[in-house]
């Protein structure tokens, strides 16, 4: 599959488009359906396609495993701290409808920052799980 020129050329166009779509879904999570989980899954799909078409080494050259785990942990910690802050100040992160203005980050409370963090976490986890299965599970 790695030597199929049609596949490789098509994927060169496809992968950025998929990633752009994923980022759009994540960033619009506070005003439309979607959000962190859906967007993160799509983002991880783009990594998986790159893995399948260009090979594992190509993806590894962009970001290796330890880096992914570290990004994920940092995101989880930030997520935890934001959540703790909003819980301790009795839940102001969920706004009452009507909600959210495009372009204004905090217009939906903490929903947008949390969505971005969730998106990154889901993308990392999905790709790590996929990679583990491809390698035969360590």
């Amino acid at each position, binding site marked *: 599959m790695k030597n199929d020129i049609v596949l490789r050329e098509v994927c060169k166009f496809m992968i950025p488009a998929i990633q752009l779509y994923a980022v759009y879904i994540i960033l619009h999570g506070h005003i439309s359906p979607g959000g962190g989980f859906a967007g993160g899954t799509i983002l991880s799909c783009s990594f998986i396609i790159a893995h399948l078409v260009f090979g594992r080494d190509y993806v590894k050259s962009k970001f290796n495993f330890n880096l992914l785990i570290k990004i994920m942990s940092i995101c989880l910690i930030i997520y935890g701290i934001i959540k703790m802050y909003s819980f301790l100040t009795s839940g102001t992160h969920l706004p009452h409808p*009507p909600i959210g203005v495009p372009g204004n980050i905090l217009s939906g409370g903490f929903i947008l920052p949390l969505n971005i963090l969730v998106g990154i976490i889901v993308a990392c986890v999905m790709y790590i799980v996929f990679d583990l*299965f491809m390698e035969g599970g360590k």
Partner: protein
Amino acid sequence: MGIVTNYFETCSIILFGVGFATLMFHRNLIKKIIGMNIMDTAVFLFFIAKGYISGKEAPIITNSYKGIEGYVNPVPTALMLTGIVVAVSTTAFALALTIKLHEKYGTIDLDEIIRMKGD
């Protein structure tokens, strides 16, 4: 007659039974994991059918807010999103364990594995 009119619930209970039987009585581990997924999906269907009120919109505010009466109950949907995440992680873990079992024992038949002596 309740069985015919509440077809969502009937269907999900049947699916739950199918999944439960697959999980309990199949020896093949992959089939067991599939049964587990069917069982979870049945509960998701049951839950989401509970939140649906006919003739009302999905709880997404597009142009203007219509008040509480305009939308279906969003709580079951939100819960089931969590449920799906949980089911995905359990499935991934079970599959990873199955791969390891196959490495160590050379089979994924649970009865055979139990009959073999561990170290």
